Each structure stands twice: as structure tokens, then as C-alpha cells.
């Protein structure tokens, strides 16, 4: 009888202990990605504790805004273009790939590149690409991507939100977080 109850009890404990989200602690905003970089999470945001991305944050719920940050090795193919990257790619070539990966999503109507510029991320040369598309309701969705390649692989910082209200509302938080990136 006790044994039969133990497993559900342990499961319940595990589930309760592994909360999916944690609010960013104002007294401890630093996020460390091991052997890679640190950044300061923006105030008022909430981090998803278990995610396919290295870091995933949202302020109002992922459908309204999110920041997703991910590092991948060069020899891993990009999902849509099936391209691999190299440390020697020019920033413009990195931007090309950022755009190509988004363009390959057929369901995005009215896709446009609003801006595409060289940038700096933690002192490393990077790109800053701002794109927009519309969904089936005609709601514009905007994405701002900072991306770079280095010896470790490729790294992308993404901020996405509906273009109405929510993108402009929290883009400053994202840009501020970008400025706090420090590579180890």
C-alpha cells in the first residue's frame, strides 16, 4: 500500500518543486550561460525554467512578447535552409541566413525586412535584423534578432511581439539586456 502511494507522492513533489516559470529576481538578475556569456535579465520579466532555448523570457505571456536566446554549434544544420555556419562568415552573410530562415516559413504573409545593420554584441561583431510579417487576422508580428558567429558556433538573441502595442512596449528592455552581454 505504502509503495503504491510512494511513486505518485514523489511525482507530486517533483512537479511542485519544478515550477515552469520564475520571476526575475530584482536582486539577482544575472544569468550565466556556462563557459559562454552572462547577461542581465530585464526587470519585470519571467523566465521559463525548462526550454529548448538556452534562455526564454516573457513579460506578459509568450503570445504577447518573448526573448529567446540560443547557442548552436556550427555543424548543426539550420532547420529550414539546412545550411551550416562557420566562424569566418561575414556579418552580412549571417544576416542573410537569419532572413532566409524566416523567409522559408510559408505561412508568413507580407514578410518584410525593416532594417538590417551591423551591430556589436558583447564587443563581438554581430548583426541586428528587424523583420515583420502578418498573421491570418492581419495582425503584424515583429521580430528583432541580434546574431553572431564565433569559434564556439552561432548565437542568436531574439525578441518577438505583435507589432501593435507590444513590440514597441518592451523593445527597450531587450535592447538594454543586449548591452549587458559579457562574453567569458
Amino acid at each position, binding site marked *: 500500500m505504502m509503495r503504491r502511494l510512494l511513486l505518485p507522492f514523489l511525482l507530486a513533489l517533483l512537479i511542485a518543486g519544478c515550477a515552469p516559470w520564475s520571476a526575475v529576481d530584482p536582486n539577482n538578475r544575472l544569468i550565466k550561460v556556462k563557459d559562454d556569456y552572462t547577461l542581465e535579465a530585464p526587470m519585470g520579466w519571467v*523566465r521559463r525554467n525548462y526550454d529548448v532555448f538556452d534562455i526564454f523570457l516573457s513579460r506578459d505571456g509568450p503570445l504577447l512578447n518573448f526573448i529567446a536566446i540560443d547557442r548552436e554549434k556550427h555543424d548543426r544544420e539550420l532547420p529550414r535552409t539546412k545550411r551550416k555556419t562557420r566562424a569566418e562568415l561575414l556579418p552580412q552573410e549571417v544576416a542573410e541566413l537569419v532572413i532566409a530562415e524566416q523567409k522559408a516559413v510559408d505561412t508568413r504573409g507580407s514578410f518584410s525586412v525593416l532594417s538590417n545593420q551591423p551591430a556589436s554584441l558583447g564587443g563581438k561583431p554581430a548583426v541586428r535584423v528587424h523583420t515583420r510579417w502578418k498573421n491570418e487576422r*492581419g495582425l503584424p508580428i515583429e521580430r528583432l534578432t541580434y546574431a553572431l558567429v564565433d569559434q564556439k558556433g552561432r548565437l542568436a538573441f531574439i525578441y518577438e511581439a*505583435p507589432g*501593435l502595442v*507590444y513590440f514597441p512596449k518592451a523593445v527597450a528592455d531587450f535592447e538594454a539586456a543586449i548591452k549587458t552581454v559579457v562574453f567569458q
Partner: protein
Amino acid sequence: MRIISSAIFFLALSLPGLSQAAFSAINPKLSSLTQDQRPKRVLLLPPQMFVAEMSAGGVIQKQDDWTRQANENLLAATEAYARENRHFETLRMPELPVEEAEIVESHIGLYDRVASAIHAYGRGKDSGWEQKKSEWDYTLGDGLSFLREKTGADSALIFVGADIISTGGRKAAFTVGLLIGIAIPLGQSFITVGLADLKTGEISWLSYDQSMSMDSREAGEVESLVKDFFKTYPHPE
């Protein structure tokens, strides 16, 4: 095991329709407003609810005539509620030129996302999101403010949802499933209603309902639903 699961399913089948508003979320500001400061003229945006039929084999197909009926039921029930309770008056959306209709449509698209976010995170029930309940800043922005001038309304009410109605064949499959211990999903409904200030876009209140037995084609059932929704609307003391 089969006997237990069958018993549970029979029980579920025999319970009266669970059609009460299960959730709500309220902008803390709304509760503190005096009667004078509260919404007085509410524009009823065209409901964004679709009604579909689930066939015996589980194929879901939208039904345009049922959808029109259900949406009309929602509007009529809201108008009736407003007349009886006199918290605010209502008016229906006039015909709009194409550009304005597109603006409304894109804002309804935004509302869809806002309502989902409030449901999942804005009620402050989930760990990590507790602060959202008091730090409420959900909004549609001022993009719909042109409707204030156009209609004289100060707020907009939006219904969004889906009602999937099982056919007789599907219900028969459910019954047979019970007998042999297989769970055959039946249709269900999920409907939300939200109130937004037309000047600022601020969302002041949302209510939600989830039911396995509601039929939005029936005017009486929709009237009960609307009354349940507004039970969660904060009235002045």
C-alpha cells in the same frame, strides 16, 4: 479498470451541464472606479465565435448558420442583460469602410492573444506570474479610439471562442465507448468575453467559460452563460 472508467464516464454523462463561468480576471483599477467613472456605453464588437459540428468519426466542421445563430444569441443576451441591470447601455457595431474594418480585425487578432495571455498568466495563479494580477497593464492600445467618435461608446465588449457540438452519431460513439472502456472525446465549448476601454485600449475585465454540454445555438443557454459571465463583473459597492 474498465468498470471504473465506464462508471466515471456514465457519471460525467449524467451530470447537469456544467456551464458556469469558471474563470475571470479583473483590472484592479476597475474595482476602484465610482459608478460615474465606469463604462456607460459599451460597443458590442461582432462576436468571434465559431460553432462546429463533430461527426461520429471525430471530423470537426464549421457550421456557418449555427455560428451566426450563436453570435446573435450572444449579442441579444448581452443587450437583454444590460437592459435589465442598467450597469451600462449597449450598441451594436455599425458597418465600417474597408480600412477601418481591417483595423478592427487586426485589433481583434491582438485581443485573441491578450485574452490567452491573461487566461494563462494574467490571473496570477501560476508560480512566477503572481505579480501580474496586481501589476495589470494588458491593453489593446489606442488604435480603436476612432470608434469612440464614430459611435459615442466609451468601451468595447468582445466575445471570442469556439463551441464544438457532437452529432448524435458522436454521442452514440461516446456511449458505446463507455461500454467497452474507450474514451471518445466529445465536443466542448470555450468562450471568453472581455471589456476594453476605447480611449486607452486598457482591458478592464475578462471572463471565461468552459463546458462539455453547452449548446450556443440555444438562446436560453446563452442567456444563462451571459448572466454567469457578468456575475464576475465588479459592480460598484
